[in-house]
C-alpha cells in the first residue's frame, strides 16, 4: 500500500471516529431537539464529505479538491459539537459552529483546481472565515444562554458578560448580513465561472455549481428566517439545508470524474483528428481549442535556429511567455520545445489536461513547426530577394552618379583642353604645351578614379588570386592596423569568396567609420562544410545591424547563400561581425 493510501485510510478512520464521537455527544445532549434525526443527517453529511473527499483524493492526488472536501467534512463535525453539555466545551463549539460554511465556500471557489487561483478568491475565503468565526463571538457576550428563546436547557454561556437580548440580536444581524452578502457574491462568482467555461471544464463545473448555489440559497433562507425570528422556519430549513448539503460532495465527485471522463473523450477526439496527416495549422488549432475548451486558444511555433516565435504562416510573433493576459504551456517533442499553447489563464487549473493534450499533439505540432519554419524561410527569402534587387538598383544609381560626376566630367574637360590646345598650337605654343600638361594630369586623375570605381564594383584580385590576396589588400588599405589570420589557401566557390570578401570590406569600413578602434582582427576558417568569417575590433561597440543598410545588405547576400550574419556589439567592448556560409 502506498504512503498516500495509508494516510487516506488513517484519515478515513479519524473521520469515522469523529462522526461516532459527535453522535455520542448529540445522543447525550440535554438541549438538542430531534436528536435522532440530527444524528442521522449529521453523519450523512460529515461522512459524505469525508468519504467522497477521500475517494477523490485517491483518484486525483495531484488535485487539491479531495483534501478540501475532507476538510469540509471535519469542519462539519464542529457543528453538532454544540450539543455538548459541558459549559466550556459548549462555548468553544458555539464559536466554531459555522466554520463549516466558510470551508464550504473555500471548496466551492477552489473547484476544480483544488486551490484558490485568484487574489479575489483568497479574499472572499478569508472574509468567509472571518464572518463565520470572528463575527460569531461578540453576540455571545450578551447572552446568558445562547439561542435563549428556543434553547431552554442550553448550558450556561461562559462568555456572557451581561444579558441583553436586543444587543445580541443586533450583533447577530451584523454577522448574518455580511454572511448573506458573501453567499450572494460567491454564488454569482461560481455561476459566472460556469458560464465562462467551455467544453470539458463546463461539464465538470455544472454539478458543483448547481449543488453549491442551491445550498447557498437554502442557507441564505435559513439565515433570513433566523433574522426574522421565525425559528420554526429556520429549524425546518436547517434540516433541509443539511440534507441538501449532503448532496454537495457527490456533486463535486461527479464534477471531478466528469472532468476526467470528458478529458479522455476530448483526448480521443483529438488523437483521431490529428491522425489525419494533412492537418493544417488552423485545423490543429481548432482541434486543440475544442479539446481544451478554450475557443481563443493560440498556437505559436518555436524556431530554434532563429531563436524566435512564429505563427502558423511563419510570420514572427512576440514571445508568448511575455504576454500578460494569457498563460502559455510549452509543447515538447523529444526534449526540444516545439510550440507554445497560448491559452486562457483558467486552464492552468487543469494542468493534467494541458499536459495530456500537449503530449498528444506534440508530433503533429512538430510537423506544423517544420511547416511554419519553411514558410518563415520563404517569407524571409521573399523580402531579402526584394531587398537585394533594390540594393542592386541603388548600386547602379550610385555607379551612374560616380561615373557621371567623376570620369565623365574629367573627360569632357579634357576634350575642351585638347581642343583649345589644338587652336593655340600654332599661335601660342607655350600656352598649348601648358594645356597639354593640364590634360595629362586630368587624364591621370580620371584613370585613378576609374580604377577605384572598378575595384568597388568587383575586386579583380579576388577573381584572379582568391580570398587571401583580396583580404590582404583590404587589410593593407585599411586606415587602422588589421591583423589578418590564416585564410584557406584553396580557391572557394566564387559566390562564397565574394560574400566573404564583402563581409570583411563592409565590416572594416564600419570599423574605420564608427568604432574608434585601435586595431581589428580578421579571421577566416573553413570547417565542417562551413566558411566562418570573423571581424573583431576593440572599439566602442554599440553597432546596430538593423540600423544601417550595409550590414542588412550583407545579411541578405549571405542569406541568399544559406548563410547568416551575426553582429555582437555590446557598448564599450568592441564589435564582432561573424558570418557563416555553407561551403562544401
Amino acid at each position, binding site marked *: 500500500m502506498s504512503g498516500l493510501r495509508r494516510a487516506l485510510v488513517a484519515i478515513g478512520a479519524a473521520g469515522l471516529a469523529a462522526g461516532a464521537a459527535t453522535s455520542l455527544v448529540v445522543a447525550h445532549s440535554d438541549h438538542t431537539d430531534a436528536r435522532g434525526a440530527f444524528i442521522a443527517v449529521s453523519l450523512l453529511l460529515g461522512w459524505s464529505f469525508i468519504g467522497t473527499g477521500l475517494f477523490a483524493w485517491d483518484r486525483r492526488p495531484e488535485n487539491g479538491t479531495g483534501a478540501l472536501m475532507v476538510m469540509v467534512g471535519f469542519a462539519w463535525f464542529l457543528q453538532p459539537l454544540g450539543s455538548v453539555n459541558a459549559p466550556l466545551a459548549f462555548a468553544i463549539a458555539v464559536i466554531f459552529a459555522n466554520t463549516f460554511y466558510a470551508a464550504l465556500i473555500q471548496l466551492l471557489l477552489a473547484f476544480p483546481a483544488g486551490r484558490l487561483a485568484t487574489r479575489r478568491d483568497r479574499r472572499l475565503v478569508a472574509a468567509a472565515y472571518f464572518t463565520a468565526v470572528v463575527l460569531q463571538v461578540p453576540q455571545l457576550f450578551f447572552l446568558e444562554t445562547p439561542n435563549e428563546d428556543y434553547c431552554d436547557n442550553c448550558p450556561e454561556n461562559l462568555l456572557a458578560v451581561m444579558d441583553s437580548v436586543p444587543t445580541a440580536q443586533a450583533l447577530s444581524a451584523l454577522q448574518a448580513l455580511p454572511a448573506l452578502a458573501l453567499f450572494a457574491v460567491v454564488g454569482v462568482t461560481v455561476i459566472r465561472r460556469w458560464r465562462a467555461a467551455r467544453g470539458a471544464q463546463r461539464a465538470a463545473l455544472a454539478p458543483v455549481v448547481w449543488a453549491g448555489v442551491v445550498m447557498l440559497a437554502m442557507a441564505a433562507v435559513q439565515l433570513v428566517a433566523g433574522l426574522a425570528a421565525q425559528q420554526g422556519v429556520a429549524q425546518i430549513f436547517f434540516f433541509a439545508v443539511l440534507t441538501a448539503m449532503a448532496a454537495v460532495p457527490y456533486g463535486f465527485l461527479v464534477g471531478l470524474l466528469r472532468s476526467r471522463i470528458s478529458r479522455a473523450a476530448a483526448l480521443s477526439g483529438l488523437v483521431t483528428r490529428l491522425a489525419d496527416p494533412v492537418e493544417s495549422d488552423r485545423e490543429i488549432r481548432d482541434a486543440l481549442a475544442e479539446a481544451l475548451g478554450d475557443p481563443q486558444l493560440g498556437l505559436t511555433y518555436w524556431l530554434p535556429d532563429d531563436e524566435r516565435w512564429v505563427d502558423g504562416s511563419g510570420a514572427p510573433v512576440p514571445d508568448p511567455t511575455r504576454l500578460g493576459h494569457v498563460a502559455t504551456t510549452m509543447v515538447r517533442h523529444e526534449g526540444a520545445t516545439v510550440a507554445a499553447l497560448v491559452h486562457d489563464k483558467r486552464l492552468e487549473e487543469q494542468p493534467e489536461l494541458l499536459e495530456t493534450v500537449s503530449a498528444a499533439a506534440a508530433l503533429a505540432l512538430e510537423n506544423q513547426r517544420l511547416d511554419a519554419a519553411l514558410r518563415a524561410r520563404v517569407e524571409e527569402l521573399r523580402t531579402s530577394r526584394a531587398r537585394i534587387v533594390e540594393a542592386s538598383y541603388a548600386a547602379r544609381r550610385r555607379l551612374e552618379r560616380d561615373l557621371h560626376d567623376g570620369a565623365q566630367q574629367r573627360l569632357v574637360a579634357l576634350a575642351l583642353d585638347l581642343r583649345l590646345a589644338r587652336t593655340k598650337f600654332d599661335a601660342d605654343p607655350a600656352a598649348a604645351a601648358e594645356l597639354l600638361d593640364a590634360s*595629362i594630369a586630368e*587624364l*591621370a586623375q580620371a*584613370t*585613378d578614379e576609374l*580604377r577605384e570605381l*572598378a*575595384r568597388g564594383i568587383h575586386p*579583380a*584580385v579576388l*577573381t*584572379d*588570386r582568391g580570398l587571401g*590576396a583580396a583580404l*590582404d*589588400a583590404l*587589410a*593593407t*588599405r*585599411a*586606415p*587602422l*592596423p*588589421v*591583423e589578418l589570420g590564416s585564410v584557406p589557401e584553396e580557391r572557394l566557390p566564387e559566390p562564397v569568396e565574394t560574400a566573404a570578401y564583402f563581409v570583411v570590406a563592409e565590416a572594416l569600413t564600419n570599423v574605420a567609420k564608427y568604432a574608434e578602434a*585601435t*586595431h581589428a582582427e580578421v579571421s577566416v576558417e573553413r570547417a565542417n562544410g562551413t566558411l566562418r568569417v570573423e571581424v573583431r575590433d576593440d572599439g566602442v561597440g554599440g553597432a546596430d545591424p538593423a540600423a544601417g543598410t550595409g550590414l542588412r545588405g550583407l545579411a541578405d547576400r549571405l542569406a541568399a547563400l544559406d548563410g547568416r550574419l551575426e553582429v555582437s556589439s555590446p557598448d564599450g567592448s568592441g564589435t564582432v561581425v561573424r558570418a557563416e556560409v555553407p561551403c562544401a
Partner: protein
Amino acid sequence: MRVVIAEDSVLLREGIVRILEDAGIEVAGQAGDAEDLLRKVRAHKPDVAITDIRMPPSHTDEGLRAAHEIRGELPEVGVLVLSQYVEQGYALDLLADNAAGVGYLLKDRVGDVDAFIDAVRRVSEGGSALDPEVVSQLLGRKRRDDPLDELTPREREVLGLMAEGRSNQAIAAALIVTERAVEKHVTSIFSKLDLVNTPEDHRRVLAVLAYLRE
C-alpha cells in the same frame, strides 16, 4: 636593347611600341595573348618581355603566369609586368625570391614616358622596378607598434625609392642630394628596421619588401 611586348589592346600596344621605339628600343615582337608571348620570347630571346596581366582567353592573370614561366625558363630575360590595377600581392609574388630583372608597373605609368623607359632599362640591366603605388601601399599599411614610425620623413622617402628598385645614385638624383648622404640614410634605415644591408640593389629590394610585407 630588344623587347617583346604582349598586350591584347591593339591601341595601347601600338602606343607602347611607339614610345619604346622613340626611346631607341627595338621591339622584336608583338603578341596579343600569353601563348603568343611565350612563343615570341623563346624565338627572339629579348632583353625584356613586357606583358599585360589580363589577356585572352580568360582575362584573368595569363600574363602573370607567362611571366613566371619566362623567369623559370629563360632567367636572362627580364620581365616587366603591366597591370590595370595595383595589387601588392601580384608584385610581391613576382618578386618573391629574386627581384633581379623583374618589374611590376601600373599600366598608367606608360604615360609617364621617362619613368617608364627608365623602368624598362632597369629591368633589362637586371635591376627591379616596383610601382610607386605598390610601394606607397606597403609603406602606408597601418601596423601596431610600427617601427616605420621611427624613420624620419626623409628616410621614409629613401625607403620608398629603395623599394621601387632604384639605386643609390638614382635616389640621390631624385632627392637632389649626394650619394654619400643617401648611403647614410640607407645605413640608418637598415639599423632602425634591424635589417641586414646588402650592396646589390635587387637583393636590397627583396629585404625591404619582405620587411614591409610582414
